[in-house]
Every structure is written in C-alpha cells, then in structure tokens.
C-alpha cells in the first residue's frame, strides 16, 4: 500500500472517493456471530474436558492438554472436509481465536502445499501462517518468565 505522502492529488481524491463508497463492516453483527460460534467451540471443549476427567483420571488442572489435542484432531477432520473454512467465513474470529483455528492454520497450509512435495511443500510451509503465533507466544513467554524468575532471585518476591 502507498503511504499518504507520496500520492498525487488525483490519487488522494480517489482514495477519498473509495473510502466514501467502501462498505462499512457490520461490526456488531460480526461480534455476535463470533460470540456464539466461539462460545459454542469452547462449550464443546468443556464437554471434552469432562469426558477426560471422568474416564481417564485427569484433574481440572491437567485436562487442558488432552482437550487441546482432541480439538486439534477435530479441526483436522473439519479442515480436510472443507467445513472449517466455510465456518471461518461465517464466524470470523469466533473460529480463528480458539485453538482449533491454530490447528486449522497449520493443517490447511499442510494440505494446500502437498502438491509441492512432502519435504519442501508440506514440511516447509506447515507453519507459514501459525509460525507468527509460535514465535511471539514463545518470545513473550520467555521475556515474562525471565523477568519473573530474575525478580524472584534478586528480590525474593
């Protein structure tokens, strides 16, 4: 995208015209859809959590791990059959923010690039979309944990 500085007057006029005719995003409607689909996915997650607590002896604290793995597995099936992308068009952040969205990003990239071969295509592109989440998650966690640990060592907090 061109910055505001390097545009001619004609271009600026056009940009204003474009802004005037640009469709306003239906923010409220999108938020309601995101709320219901996101809430529904989390409710399914809660049901899976109870399943693991009652049948496989997990505790409320440790149940997050198997639940996340199961949700990613479900997201593989839904992505493979093309359901999750359609859901994403409808729900926006409602399907992107839960961990199934992370799974969908990895899996759809893997499926999309399989024609380029398994090593360079699938292996090389798998984390194309989800890599930024991993990078910033890990780095932020590193900084936060480092600060807290150092404060604990020096300050006895």
């Amino acid at each position, binding site marked *: 995208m061109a910055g505001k500085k390097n545009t001619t007057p004609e271009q600026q006029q056009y940009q204003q015209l474009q802004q005037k005719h640009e469709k306003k*995003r239906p*923010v409220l409607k*999108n*938020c309601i859809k*995101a*709320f219901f689909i*996101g*809430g*529904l*996915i*989390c*409710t399914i*997650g*809660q049901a899976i*959590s109870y399943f693991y607590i009652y049948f496989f002896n997990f505790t409320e604290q440790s149940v*997050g*791990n198997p*639940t*996340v*793995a199961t949700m*990613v*597995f479900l997201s*593989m099936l839904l992505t*493979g059959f*093309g359901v999750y992308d359609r859901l994403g068009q409808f729900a*926006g*952040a*409602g399907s*992107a*923010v*839960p*961990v199934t*969205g*992370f*799974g969908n990003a*990895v*899996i759809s990239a*893997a*499926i999309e*690039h*399989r024609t380029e071969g*398994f090593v360079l295509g*699938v292996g090389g592109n*798998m984390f194309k979309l*989800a890599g*930024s*989440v991993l990078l*910033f*998650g*890990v780095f*932020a*966690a*590193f900084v*936060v*944990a*480092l*600060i*807290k*640990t150092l404060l604990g*060592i020096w300050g006895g907090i």
Partner: protein
Amino acid sequence: MLAMFFWAFVIGGLICVIGQLLFDVAKLTPGHTLSLLVVIGAVLAGFGLYEPLINFAGAGASIPITSFGNSLVNGALQDANNHGLIGVLTGMFQVTSSGVSAAIIFGFIGALVFKPKG
C-alpha cells in the same frame, strides 16, 4: 457442572469478540490479532491473572489461543522454580506440548489423507 458450561460459553465467546473487534475496529490481520492475543495471554500469566480465569471458566479460557501464552509461561516458571534460570528454556513447552505436537502430527496426517480443494 451446568454453570461451568455456561461460563465456558460466555468467557470463550467474549474472548472471540475481543478478537473480532481487533479484526474489524483496529483493522488488524488475523496473523497480527492472534499474535497479539498470545502475547496478552503470556502477560496476564506473568501477573498470575490467567489461572484464576481458567478455574472460573474452564475450557472457555483454556481453548482460546490466549491460553497458549499462559501455558508457555507456566511451564517456563515451573521449571525455573526447580532448576533456576535455565528452566525458562527447558520448561517452555512442558505444559503446552500437546497443542504443538498435535498440530504437527495431525497436520501431516491431514496432508497425507486429504487433497487440496479448488
């Protein structure tokens, strides 16, 4: 138990609404939004605010991607308590191993089984 389902629905839905607002109002791309949410989760974990939310809302707090940042911090801090500073590195993926390994394994299986559409 029913209350837990209710709060999972409400809190999970609200976190998704925050994501939707970042999409629509702040005009961030999905990549930026998810990265920001993970960082927010890590920072909240640093202040010890995310665990209470999980105790309160269950999967409503542990399924959204913010919990990924939270588990990374918790794993790092647990190992740092036991082994000192190097634990920050060794413990990083201890709690949240399943999300990443499941994504890799099922991603590869998915690529073996399914054909790209369109």
